[in-house]
């Protein structure tokens, strides 16, 4: 994983490369800046902990109940099912497109990665609006299909939304593995399956472990898909408690439990990474691709078609169909420009704020490595991994009590977005920074510039592309963000994601189609250029 974009995909990427001036002391103002951009993010979390500790006995009794145990078991089982399905899908897809002689493997590789641009709740919306009550199928045939909502339907949706993470990481690893071992195994009489299990799989294990933990984290944090498809996991229950109850303590307690699970998974992820083995950056030669028998070829094609069909073609077609129906049955399109403006302004503001905050974090992490900068960096990544609904609830508690006019303001919302996604901006900046030879900066200093001048004249222009790429990622992620927006948006502030969510909740699919498609297009283009295309070249 050398490219900057690869690291952006992965919030817990290994620290940037080795450096000459590790011990160089940073000026105080840089430390202050670094701490100042990271610390405020922790205040609401601390406030949440305080609130939970100060909660009444009744709230604690509610926590230690059979229902909570059930919720915990269901959430973890759900994450497990999704992770296992997504991992199998991702690994199989990566193997087929890199190790067999399947035709059009390049086209397949791109198509297989594309579901990454579809937010999980848009995917859920398309499934429900196709097969659910009042959906396309029931509407045009008069036959109601058995309900696709619920645990298993949502698991399929989330697996389809997340397998590209596994696929991309595994694929980029598999192409770097020296194929001669596999070929030797096959030459000595192993079947393809056995060669894969005994030779390839062990080498892929670190990549699979890291990416599947990411999927687990994503699943645990997902709010939109599980809510639309009615699975009682933590995120949905927290929101139901938030909406339906006057006393918010149970929601606070559950949020904290959810955060703890996320942190545990994150810890597991970093451990799995610590034990990982890295390979030569390039395989010595391309592998001999396995010739598929006709039957196997049909099976492989069926597998890839179903995966891409459900994960990509179905949602796009269903949404387009609804849009057309809306257009033909008399303008129930309901495209609100206020929502477009809200999405754009929120995302641009978040991107810019994150870019500003990313600079001190990245400079400290790359140029001044040490305990504190490592802690700052780890905090940034940990925040990135926390479920948004829990963070947003913590901010609600804190801001409504102590921040007065800032609560429910655009400024606070943009700040929360930037905080949640700072890791994306700082990761990209770090990658850009490691590629600058520090001697360039030293030379400028030697010629009489002070630190700020060096930064402005040498460093900033050189890292600007990376910084912009990071800002663009934050822009995209903010565009899709739902739970924090629902809880923290200013009165009258609307976004495309919120439109999709509320129209989908009213089962007004024709009205949900336009904002959903727009969201998809807006996030597809940059996602393709930033993440998918560079990885295809690996």
């Amino acid at each position, binding site marked *: 994983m050398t490219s900057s974009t690869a690291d952006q995909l992965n919030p817990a990427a290994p620290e940037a490369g080795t450096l000459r001036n590790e011990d160089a002391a940073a000026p105080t103002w840089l430390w202050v800046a670094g701490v100042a951009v990271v610390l405020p993010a922790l205040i609401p979390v601390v406030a949440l902990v305080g609130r939970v500790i100060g909660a009444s006995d009744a709230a604690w009794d*509610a926590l230690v109940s059979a*229902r909570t145990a059930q919720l915990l078991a269901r959430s973890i089982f759900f994450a497990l099912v999704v992770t296992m399905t997504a991992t199998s899908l991702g690994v199989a897809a990566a193997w087929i497109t890199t190790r067999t002689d399947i035709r059009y493997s390049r086209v397949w590789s791109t198509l297989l990665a594309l579901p990454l641009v579809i937010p999980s709740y848009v995917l859920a919306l398309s499934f429900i609006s196709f097969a659910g*009550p*009042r959906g396309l199928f*029931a509407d045009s045939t008069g036959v*109601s299909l058995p309900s696709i909502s619920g645990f298993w339907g949502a698991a399929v949706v989330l697996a389809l939304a997340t397998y590209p993470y596994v696929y991309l990481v595994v694929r980029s690893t598999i192409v770097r593995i020296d194929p001669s071992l596999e070929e030797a195994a096959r030459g000595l009489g192993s079947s393809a399956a056995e060669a894969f299990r005994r030779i390839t799989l062990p080498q892929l294990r670190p990549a699979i472990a890291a990416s599947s933990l990411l999927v687990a984290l994503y699943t645990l944090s997902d709010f939109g898909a599980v809510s639309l498809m*009615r699975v*009682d996991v933590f995120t949905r*229950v927290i929101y*139901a*408690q*938030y*909406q*339906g*109850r*006057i*006393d*918010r303590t149970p929601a606070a307690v559950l949020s904290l439990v959810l955060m703890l699970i996320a942190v545990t998974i994150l810890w597991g992820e970093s451990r799995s990474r610590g034990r990982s083995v890295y390979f030569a950056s390039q395989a010595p030669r391309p592998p001999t691709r396995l010739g598929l028998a006709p039957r196997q070829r049909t099976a492989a094609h069926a597998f890839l078609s179903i995966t891409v069909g459900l994960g990509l073609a179905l949602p796009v077609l269903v949404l387009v169909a609804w849009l057309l129906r809306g257009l033909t049955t008399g303008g129930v399109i309901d495209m609100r420009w206020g929502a477009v*403006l*809200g999405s*754009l*302004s929120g995302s*641009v*503001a978040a991107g*810019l704020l994150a870019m500003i905050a990313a600079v001190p974090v990245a400079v400290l992490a790359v140029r001044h490595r040490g305990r504190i900068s490592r802690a700052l960096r780890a905090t940034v990544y940990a925040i990135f991994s926390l479920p948004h609904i829990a963070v947003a609830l913590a901010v*609600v*508690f804190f801001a*409504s*009590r102590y921040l*007065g006019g800032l*609560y*429910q*303001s*655009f*400024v606070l919302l*943009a700040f929360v977005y930037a905080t949640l996604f700072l890791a994306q901006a700082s990761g990209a900046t770090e990658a850009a920074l490691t590629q600058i030879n520090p001697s360039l900066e030293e030379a400028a200093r030697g010629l009489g510039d002070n630190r700020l001048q060096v930064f402005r004249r040498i460093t*900033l222009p050189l890292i*600007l592309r990376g910084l*912009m790429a990071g800002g663009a990622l934050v822009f995209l992620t903010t565009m899709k963000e739902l739970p924090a927006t629902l809880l923290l948006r*200013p*009165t*009258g*502030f609307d976004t495309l994601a919120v439109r999709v969510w509320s129209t989908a*909740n*009213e*089962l007004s699919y024709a009205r949900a189609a336009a904002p959903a498609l727009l969201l998809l297009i807006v996030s597809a283009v940059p996602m393709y250029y930033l993440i998918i295309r560079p990885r295809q070249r690996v």
Partner: protein
Amino acid sequence: MIRRLVVLTSLVAVVATACGGTDDGAADSITVYSGRSEELVAPLIELFEEASGIEVEVRYAESAELAATILEEGTNTPADVFFAQDPASLGAVALGGHFRALDNALLDKVDPGFSDDAGRWVGVSGRARVVVYDSGKVDSATLPATEDGFTEAAWAGRLAVAPTNGSFLAFVAAKILIDGEAATLRWLEGIKANDAPTYPKNSVIVAAVNDGEVDAGLVNHYYLFRLQDEVGTTVAANHFMTGGGAGSLVMPAGAGILAGSENAAAATEFIEFLLGAEAQAFFADETFEYPLANGMDPNEALPPLGDLNPPQLRLSDLAGALDRATDLVATAGLL
């Protein structure tokens, strides 16, 4: 590139001020937290803005969520008026001491049975619980007179509910007060055991019943009339449960003024408007609710309020039961 960034930044700043800068202190503007839906309230707000020249900012969300928000915000709340779907949410804000006492002139306009007994909020329009049913498939004579009949096996898979909806939760809270917690939980479990199809909203249930997707649903009375307004005649029909239980409840939607409001005069004017002839006629004929101001008549399609046999209930007690209602609904596995 840096220059482009600067341009972009200033653009965002302009947009941000344009979006957020409307509410700075102008005396003739108020902020309303509305637990009632935008679809329903927005046209009324427009009428009010035109008539009074007062600008209104509205935050739409679930009633209970907004009540909790007000409790959380305390004196920081930007809200001047809380306009809620149900007396439970209003009661929670009143109990927290966040409402100011309303003028008697306002309270006198409404039957005291539909307002807070300490005069902190006033009922504006009434909503009855009903069973909406498919008149093509269901013989109206088989429909029970109380909600308890729906836990019987004959109704398996046939009665839809919207368990996360505020009116459903308020109804469950009322049932707790009338029948007690144990009986309410038994009822919810019975509904769950009957595999009641669940929907996100009342309006969706009514449309589903009308399309023959499900036989019946527990909703508020007015969704059917609004659907008829849209599509003409419907096969769906309303059944009022007049047995005197929680299912016979007439729940007022109401409004109160926040204690910390700096625009109390404008806020009072808003509530006066809600109780005035124009808004009350809107509730009667546009949203098909029961107008609660004295001397106003409901739409002639509705049975008179007097025929509904609602249970005797102190509305201010509902607030205390709302959280228990959410708990019981979750315990029964209905969420």
